[in-house]
């Protein structure tokens, strides 16, 4: 069967083409409707399918394979796919809040806005990574927003599902991706490292902060290979008002060696959500690029660089975010000690872990709370000091630990919310002994265990 002419009014597999939204060289995006379907939908139709560019065809196959397997708010909902034998297409939910590409015309942005948008994108990528999918083409044009600001990743044509065949793996001699945002290992044709998405998001953060792409838009594979040794100007050299924590985050994302970056998207999201907890290194205040000798050294190393071996499939679980909820009421120090001992033991098994120490300052349920004024502030600081003292025997380096005093009328809810918002992999907390009242009212640990989105370890002191 001959492929149909793509035009307004065409009915394809039950979908009516209403209006073209984007007429690119590679694919067209049409607004479509289907009788009895209220969901706003678009149809993506690839254009070149006769052998000129196999990346295009295979990329479209990959998208048809991966999108139906993704779920959640950070991807457009999959509706239907068209048969390659007739006219291939993908129908998906239409995302109406605009793209980051459109918003980027307003860059540079204030640091708080960079962190807010960056965090939204990091949340989206974290969700993809947890579904075993690497996007591998993170760029402003592929980030859309829902009306509530939730970021949605689109275009899975270069993506990789780590439990499905990678049809793009072997065939293509040239690196695939979008030049300004491509990670160094992608230049070497590696397609299996979640930290490639960390690098690309670092490029996007840089662009939002400075209004410029860190590496420009290189053409040709020789220029692209510069990605293996060339370092961009630190953001503060272009924007002196860029705060040190933001420069620290961006430059850590842009490390040439993936091992120098955030080990997981969740850990990057964590820093974007808690700028005050970012550990600052010399990179944070740098105003210049690396010296000539350092760059020459990298150039030599890059000269023989080959595609790195794939990282372990469980790399993400080796660098988890562990939340330890510490109850600092004086009567329960035996439990606090037991929680610390358990935490220490678990961390020896997880050398890449990051520990978030959390204490909940309980607010009164009724009336105006006196902890909101100066006295409350003092209490907050006092708890923070107690929390640091509690953690000191663990002997963790500063970059592996952070401290959070939450204020809430409902401690269990506060812990669960903090765990969810920070992509926590594991909660450790204490439980006090059994008592009639506790059984009757329910305990904090029981509620956290029931509602947390992750593993919860409940520790009791020896009787």
């Amino acid at each position, binding site marked *: 069967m001959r492929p149909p002419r793509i035009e307004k009014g065409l009915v394809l597999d039950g979908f009516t083409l209403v209006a073209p939204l984007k007429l690119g060289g590679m694919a067209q995006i049409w607004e479509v409707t289907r009788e009895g379907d209220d969901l706003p939908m678009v149809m993506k139709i690839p254009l070149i399918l006769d052998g000129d560019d*196999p990346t295009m065809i*295979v990329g479209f196959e990959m998208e048809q*394979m991966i999108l139906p397997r993704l779920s959640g708010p950070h991807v457009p909902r999959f509706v239907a796919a068209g048969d390659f034998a007739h006219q291939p297409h993908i129908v998906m939910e239409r995302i109406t809040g605009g793209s980051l590409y459109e918003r980027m015309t307003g860059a540079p942005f204030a640091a708080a806005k960079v962190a807010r948008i960056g965090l939204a994108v990091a949340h989206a990528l974290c969700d993809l990574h947890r579904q075993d999918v690497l996007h591998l083409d993170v760029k402003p044009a592929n980030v859309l927003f829902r009306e509530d600001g939730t970021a949605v990743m689109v275009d899975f044509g270069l993506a990789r599902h780590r439990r499905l065949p*990678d049809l793009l793996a*072997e065939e293509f001699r040239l690196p695939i991706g979008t030049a300004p945002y491509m990670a160094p290992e992608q230049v070497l044709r590696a397609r299996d490292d979640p930290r490639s998405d960390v690098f690309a998001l670092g490029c996007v953060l840089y662009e939002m902060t400075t209004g410029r792409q860190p590496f420009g838009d290189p053409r040709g594979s020789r220029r692209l290979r510069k990605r293996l040794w060339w370092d961009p100007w630190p953001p503060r050299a272009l924007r002196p008002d860029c705060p040190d924590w933001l420069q620290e985050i961006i430059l850590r994302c842009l490390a040439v060696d993936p091992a120098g970056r955030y080990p997981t998207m969740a850990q990057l999201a964590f820093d974007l959500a808690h700028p005050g907890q970012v550990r600052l290194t010399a990179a944070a205040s740098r105003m210049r690029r690396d010296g000539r000798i350092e760059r020459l050294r990298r150039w030599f190393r890059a000269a023989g660089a080959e595609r790195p071996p794939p990282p372990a499939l469980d790399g993400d679980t080796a660098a988890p975010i562990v939340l330890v909820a510490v109850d600092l009421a004086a009567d329960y120090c035996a439990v606090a000690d037991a929680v610390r001992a358990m935490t220490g033991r678990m961390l020896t098994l997880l050398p890449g872990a990051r520990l978030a120490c959390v204490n909940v300052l309980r607010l009164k349920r009724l009336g105006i709370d006196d902890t909101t004024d100066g006295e409350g502030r003092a209490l907050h600081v006092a708890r923070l000091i107690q929390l640091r003292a509690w953690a000191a025997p663990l002997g963790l380096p500063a970059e592996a630990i952070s401290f959070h005093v939450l204020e809430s009328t409902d401690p269990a809810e506060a812990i669960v919310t903090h765990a969810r918002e920070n992509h926590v992999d594991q909660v450790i907390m204490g439980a006090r002994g059994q008592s009639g009242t506790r059984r009757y009212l329910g305990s904090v640990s029981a509620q956290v265990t029931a509602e947390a989105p992750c593993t919860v370890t409940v520790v009791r002191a020896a009787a």
Partner: protein
Amino acid sequence: MRIALLTDIHANREALEATLAHVARQQVGRIAVLGDIVGYGADPVACTEIVMDLAASGALVLQGNHDEAVARDDADMNADALAAMAWTRGVLGEAHRRFLAGLPLTAREGDLLLVHAGARNPGQWPYVMTPRDAELSFGATDARLIVCGHTHVPALFSLQPNRTCVAFTPVAGSPVPLAAHRRWHVVVGSVGQPRDGIAAAAYAVLDLGQGVLEPHRVPYDHPAAAAKIRAAGLPDRLASRLAHGR
């Protein structure tokens, strides 16, 4: 139509029975046994009789090189395999021998080709281990889907628009969609002597309606199977390898 794909049973009764119990829960419409029912293991009679029963109730059964070697002396095999084969010939009865010798090399159903080793010269028992092997196999047939065994290492190959193949190692519990416009070469792992480092029996379900391959692994009592191999006086290596899936 859902087809259970079993291959390289190799006279391992424990593995075969555990696998068939697993298959019974998968709502399959058909079972296909892709050969090498005997050889290496200590239960050739029991395994052949189980497969004969399957065949009698509609299963598709193909011949493997070990099944062929029962009736042929000049088989190209390593010393362990030859020792096991000599022993196997001694314990099989006439009916078993007739059944194994009468099995076909290939089966074709629509765009699906089933074969023990590979589509190119199937009687010469080629190995499909690399993308290049798969390309040769694709070149020998117009079947869109080829399913084989023989290597004892599960793999999946797909033909690209530029006529080369990409390789993938299927993971048990992660179904793989097989796009309908592509050609796919499934290499099913071994029921009775896995060699990919996993001791559990390997098999797969192919859902032709949905176009999905479901790879499975079934733990079985491999110490019992190994003990029988030792008790039969077969080479110790054939017993010890079962614990390591090597």
